[in-house]
C-alpha cells in the first residue's frame, strides 16, 4: 500500500470519484487555480478543468446554497470550506436547507452533497479560527458528520461520503494534512459510514477519541501500558451516525470510559457518548465516565493558554487513572 499524506488521501478519494462519475464537481475558495489553500486539491484543475473544479469568490453562504441547489438538480457537489470556521457564514444553507429539504419535500429531493474542509484547532489562531463543529452540526437531524483520524480512513470514508445520497459534513484537520500513512489503493476502496474502529485492544479502560484527539488517546494508551494498564482505544470515525454498539461492547468489557474531544464540552459529542453509555451500559459501569475536552471557553491566542486549552495526552492519562481509581 502506498504511503500518502492525509491531504493526498483526500485528493485521491475526490479524484477517483470524479473519474468515476461526471456529476461530481469540487467548488470552493482557492480550490482551482491556487491548488487549494492547504493544497488538498492540487492538480485537480489541470485534470478536470474549470467546469468541475470551480473557484468561488469569498461567498460562503452563496456557494454552499448553490451546491445544495445543484444537488437538488442532479449533480453531486463537493463543497470545500477553506476552514469550517467560515461555514458559519453559510450556516443557514448548511443547517436549514441541506438537512431539511428531503424531509420537508416528503422525500422528493435527495441532497447528495459533501461539505468538507479543516476543522478545529490549528495552532494559535484565536477564537474565530478555532471552532470544532462536530457537536454543533451533528445536532441537526439530516446531516451526517464524518471525522477521520488517518489517511486511510479519510480516503475510504470520503469516497463513501461522496456516494452518499444525503448531505455529509466531512471534517479534516489542518494540523494533520501532512501526516503520512498507508492508504489502500484497492479498486473501489470504500469504508462504511457509521462504523467505529478499535484501534487498540485492552481490558482496563475504554478511550473514545476521534480526529486529532485520537492521537492524544493513543499516546496516553502507550504511556498507560508502560504502567501496566491496558487501554482500549476506539476511533468512532463518524460522529453521526454513531457506532455506539462498538463503544458499548467495549465498555461492557472494561467497565470504564474516557472520551477525548477537542470541542467545547457543553452539549457536546462527549456528552452524547456519556448519555448513550449510561443508557445502554449503566450496569456495567464501575465509574462515572470522564470527558477530556477543551474548556467551556473561547480559544485564546497566547501559546501557554492554548497549550492549557487543548486536551493533552497527560490529561487523558489522568482521566483514565481517575476512572480506574488508581490516581
Amino acid at each position, binding site marked *: 500500500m502506498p504511503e500518502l499524506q492525509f491531504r493526498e488521501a483526500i485528493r485521491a478519494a475526490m479524484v477517483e470519484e470524479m473519474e468515476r462519475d461526471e456529476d461530481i464537481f469540487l467548488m470552493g475558495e482557492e480550490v482551482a487555480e491556487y491548488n487549494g489553500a492547504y493544497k488538498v486539491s492540487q492538480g485537480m484543475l489541470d485534470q478536470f478543468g474549470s467546469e468541475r473544479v470551480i473557484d468561488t*469568490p469569498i461567498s460562503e453562504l452563496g456557494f454552499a446554497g448553490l451546491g445544495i441547489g445543484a444537488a437538488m438538480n442532479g449533480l453531486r457537489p463537493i463543497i470545500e470550506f477553506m476552514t469550517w470556521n*467560515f461555514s458559519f457564514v453559510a450556516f443557514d444553507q448548511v443547517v436549514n436547507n441541506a438537512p431539511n429539504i428531503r424531509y420537508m419535500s416528503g422525500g422528493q429531493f435527495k441532497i447528495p452533497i459533501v461539505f468538507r474542509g479543516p476543522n478545529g484547532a490549528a495552532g494559535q489562531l484565536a*477564537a474565530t479560527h478555532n471552532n470544532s463543529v462536530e457537536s454543533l452540526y451533528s445536532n441537526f437531524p439530516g446531516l451526517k458528520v464524518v471525522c477521520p483520524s488517518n489517511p486511510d480512513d479519510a480516503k475510504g470514508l470520503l469516497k463513501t461520503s461522496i456516494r452518499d445520497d444525503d448531505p455529509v459534513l466531512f471534517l479534516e484537520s489542518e494540523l494533520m494534512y501532512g501526516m503520512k500513512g498507508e492508504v489502500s489503493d484497492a479498486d473501489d476502496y470504500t469504508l462504511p459510514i457509521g462504523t467505529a474502529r478499535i484501534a487498540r485492544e485492552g481490558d482496563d479502560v475504554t478511550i473514545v477519541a476521534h480526529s486529532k484527539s485520537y492521537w492524544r488517546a493513543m499516546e496516553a494508551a502507550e504511556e498507560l501500558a508502560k504502567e501496566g494498564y491496558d487501554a482500549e482505544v476506539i476511533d468512532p470515525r463518524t460522529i453521526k451516525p454513531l457506532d455506539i454498539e462498538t463503544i458499548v461492547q467495549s465498555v461492557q468489557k472494561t467497565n470504564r470510559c474516557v472520551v477525548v474531544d477537542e470541542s467545547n464540552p457543553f452539549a457536546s459529542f462527549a456528552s452524547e457518548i456519556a448519555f448513550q453509555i449510561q443508557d445502554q451500559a449503566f450496569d456495567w459501569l464501575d465509574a462515572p465516565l470522564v470527558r477530556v475536552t477543551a474548556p467551556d*471557553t473561547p480559544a485564546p491566542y497566547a501559546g501557554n493558554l492554548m497549550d492549557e486549552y487543548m486536551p493533552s495526552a497527560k490529561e487523558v492519562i489522568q482521566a483514565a487513572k481517575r476512572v480506574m481509581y488508581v490516581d
Partner: protein
Amino acid sequence: MAKKKTNASKPTVSPEHARHLLHQMLRIRRMEERAAELYTAEKIRGFLHLYIGEEAVAVGVMEAAAEQDAIVATYREHGHALVRGMPARAIMAEMFGKQEGCCRGRGGSMHLFDRTLRIYGGNAIVGGGLPLAVGLGLADALQGRDGVTICFFGEGAVAEGEFHESMNLAELWQLPVLFVCENNLYAMGTALDRSESQTDLTEKAESYKIPSKAVDGMDVLAVEAAARRAMDEVRSGQGPYFLECRTYRFRAHSMFDPELYREKSEVDAWKQRDPIATFFDRMKDHDLLSDADRKALEAEVNEEIDDAVAFAEAGTLEPVDALTRFVYSDAPSGAASNGQPAASPAS
C-alpha cells in the same frame, strides 16, 4: 504658457505635516518588517498578514479621524492600530501572546482591540467587521454623539452578503459610517475580476445610493484629502460614504503563500510606486523633506520598534488559571471551565 498641472506640482502640505506622514508610514513599515522576522523566529505565531505596500491607506485615512471616531479593521490591521495611537509595545506584546498586549494575549495579530482608542477590533472573518461598524454608527447616532465609524476591509469582502446588508442598512438609516475598501487587487490568490461581475466597486456603493470615490491608495496625500472630504460629509449627517483606495500588497497574503497567482513583474511595477519612497521623493523634490529628515525619522522608528520588541520579549505570560477569565462579564477566574454557569458572586 500655463504651467501644466501634474502630480508633480508642489503639494500644499507643510514640512511638519510631510514629516508626520512619512513618520507614520515608516512606523508601520518597520513594525511589519520586524513582525515578519519575529514570525520566522517563532516569536509570533498563528497567522500573520502584513500591510507592507498599503501604508498610505491607513495613514491617510487616519489623518481624517478624530478622537470620537471609531475604527473597525480586518486581520491585516497592525498598521491601523499603530497609527490610531496604540503603542507599538502593546501591539508587539499581543503578537507575542503576553499579558502586556492590548488584549492580554487573547486575540493575537488578527484581533487587536482598544476600547479607549475606539478600536473595535481587527476582525478575522472576511466581511465580519462591516455590520459591527454600522452598529457602532447606529449607537453613536442614537446617542446623539458625532462620532463617525471608519470601517476598513479588503475588496474580497465585497463578495460577502455581510457587505451588501451593511451597505444597505447604513444608507437606509443614514448612519455615520465611512467604508474604506482597501482594494489591493487580490483576495488571497483571487484577482478581483475573477470574483466580481462588477469590478468598479464604487458602482456597488452607488447602487445603494452611497456617495463614493476611488482614490490612488499609494498616494498618502490623495488618500488624506479624499478621506477628509468624505469624513466631512459623513460628519455633517449625510449618511455613509464609500472610499475605495487602490493599493497593492507587496508581500504574500500571509506567511504561507507561494504567490503563484501574480507575475513578479507586476509586483515589481507596483513596488515602483512604493507609497513611502514616492512620497519622500516628491517631498524632497519640493524641499519639504531632506535625506537628513528621513534618516532621523528612520532612526526614531527603529528605536521605537526595537523598544516594542524588547518590551514584548520581557513581557509576562498570563497565568494559565486565567484562561477562563473574560468569558462572561461576571465570571471569576476558573469559574466556567466545565460548562457550568459561573456562580453568582453572592453564592
